[in-house]
């Protein structure tokens, strides 16, 4: 299936504080822009895949959105793999298209945890709440402590990741946080759950993003102006609670990455730019190792001398990622991958021909990978 499906259009809303906007309204704005970007008529869309909004979970959200959009999709539904949902939905859309179940799919995500409720991020965890065990960030902190212990790395690696994302976000007019970060600022930022600092943690944002998926053939027939081929995709889900994982620093990200690389017929050495899910800096560190960009504990070698920045060895999160562009979970990374392949990023990597994108959900419970090309 390598290259048989393309991302034909992308769209997004503003990111940040958007009071008074429902997730339906945000989804519709992103979808309207994505369809316009692809240059197709709305009535050509016959599949609608949507990630469940976590700020207010409701039954049958996909059908509610379809109704609001005046659609009766042939294929679709609501995905709930947290932040991994987006790439998983694009993968399923591509497979449904290949199977002849639909022709043009919209994949969309909206959420408004910033002006709505962010309860999903701060929830106590079952009986263990009685120990004070609550919040998403604490799960990542538990992993981060073990990671630093096992690898012997210093938090400098986390600072390098945050600095690259924030530097790229500062150039992005759509970014919610446009303040570049220095190593001193990172070191001075307050602990949230030690060993994670404020600047290790992603933003909380309202917003939406959407993509149009179709076959490469159809994109050609419809004269889609800038289709971006999907070369590979994969998934892997740890599906167990953080404390119960035999190795806190092992997830299914490696399986997901290897599946995507195998489908694309590529390896890490062929990747020009990466959009890596950065809900927390530790996630980026572990994902890059799981994808074999370096061996475990050798991340410092890429990080050295601005390796994650444009012009460096592995330019990372060139729109600012979740740490700077928007904390909205995941689809914006795909949009930036598409821009890099089109040559239209504000932080364009010269001659970039391949981009890997990771999506991840829960406390590294779920993982999805996609490789884009030209």
């Amino acid at each position, binding site marked *: 299936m390598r290259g048989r499906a393309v991302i034909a259009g992308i769209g997004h809303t503003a990111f940040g504080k958007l009071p008074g906007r429902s997730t339906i309204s945000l989804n519709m704005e992103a979808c309207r822009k994505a369809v316009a970007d692809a240059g197709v008529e709305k009535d050509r869309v016959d599949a609608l895949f949507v990630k469940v909004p976590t700020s207010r979970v409701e039954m049958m959200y996909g059908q509610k959105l379809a109704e609001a959009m005046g659609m009766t999709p042939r294929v679709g539904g609501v995905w709930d793999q947290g932040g991994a949902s987006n790439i998983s939905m694009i993968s399923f859309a591509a497979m449904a298209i290949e199977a002849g179940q639909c022709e043009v799919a919209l994949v969309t995500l909206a959420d408004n945890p910033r002006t709505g409720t962010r309860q999903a991020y*701060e929830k*106590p*965890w*079952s*009986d*263990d*709440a*009685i*120990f*004070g*065990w*609550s*919040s998403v*960030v*604490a799960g990542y*902190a*538990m*992993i981060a*402590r*073990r990671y630093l*212990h096992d690898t012997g790395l210093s938090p400098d690696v986390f600072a390098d990741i945050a600095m690259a994302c924030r530097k790229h976000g500062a150039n992005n007019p759509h970014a919610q946080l446009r303040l570049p970060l220095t190593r001193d600022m990172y070191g001075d930022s*307050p*602990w*949230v*759950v*030690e*060993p994670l600092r404020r600047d290790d943690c992603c933003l909380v944002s309202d917003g939406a993003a959407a993509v149009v998926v179709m076959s490469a053939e159809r994109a050609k027939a419809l004269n889609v102006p800038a289709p971006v081929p999907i070369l590979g995709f994969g998934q892997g889900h740890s599906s167990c609670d*953080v*404390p*119960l994982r035999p190795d*806190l620093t092992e997830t299914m990200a490696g399986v997901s990455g290897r599946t995507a690389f195998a489908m694309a017929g590529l390896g890490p050495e062929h990747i020009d730019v990466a959009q890596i899910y950065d809900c927390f800096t530790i996630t980026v560190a572990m994902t890059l190792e799981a994808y074999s960009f370096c061996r475990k504990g050798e991340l410092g070698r890429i990080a050295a001398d601005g390796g994650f920045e444009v012009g460096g060895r592995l330019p990372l999160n060139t729109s600012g990622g979740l740490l700077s562009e928007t904390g909205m979970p995941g689809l914006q990374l795909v949009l930036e991958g598409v821009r890099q392949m089109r040559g239209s990023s504000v932080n364009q990597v010269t001659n970039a021909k391949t981009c890997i994108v990771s999506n991840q959900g829960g406390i590294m419970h779920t993982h999805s990978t996609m490789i884009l090309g030209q």
Partner: protein
Amino acid sequence: MSDTASAERQGPPPSDWGPPGDAYWAALDEGRLTFQRCGACGNGWLPPRTECPRCWSPDWRWEKAEGTATVVSWVIYHTAFDKRFQERLPYNVAVVELDEGPRMVTNLVDLPDGQQDLIGRRVELVVQRDLGRALPRFRLSP
């Protein structure tokens, strides 16, 4: 008295794992930390649930843990996402692995002053009454 009662009312939501959770907490009330052992495959686990997570068998029995364990990882909260813990900041939460195998979430108590790497340190059970329950906590072994 009224403080305890109100803490119990605000206490954690019921266990996700079904009735075995009640027996687990009842044993702690009597000072015993227990875990489940599968009669079919021998797997031992926590937190309490109705089927073995390895072989799916519903055939299991309670076993008493010795109360000795090793620290897997730990964190320090500087923000109270759960407002009941606001006045305890900063407080720690740890994951420990019992010598019998199961892992659990807990708090480390009586820690000496000063930062140190606690991962891999040996710890032992201390059952403490708090928030209306007997809680299994751990302190560094001598």
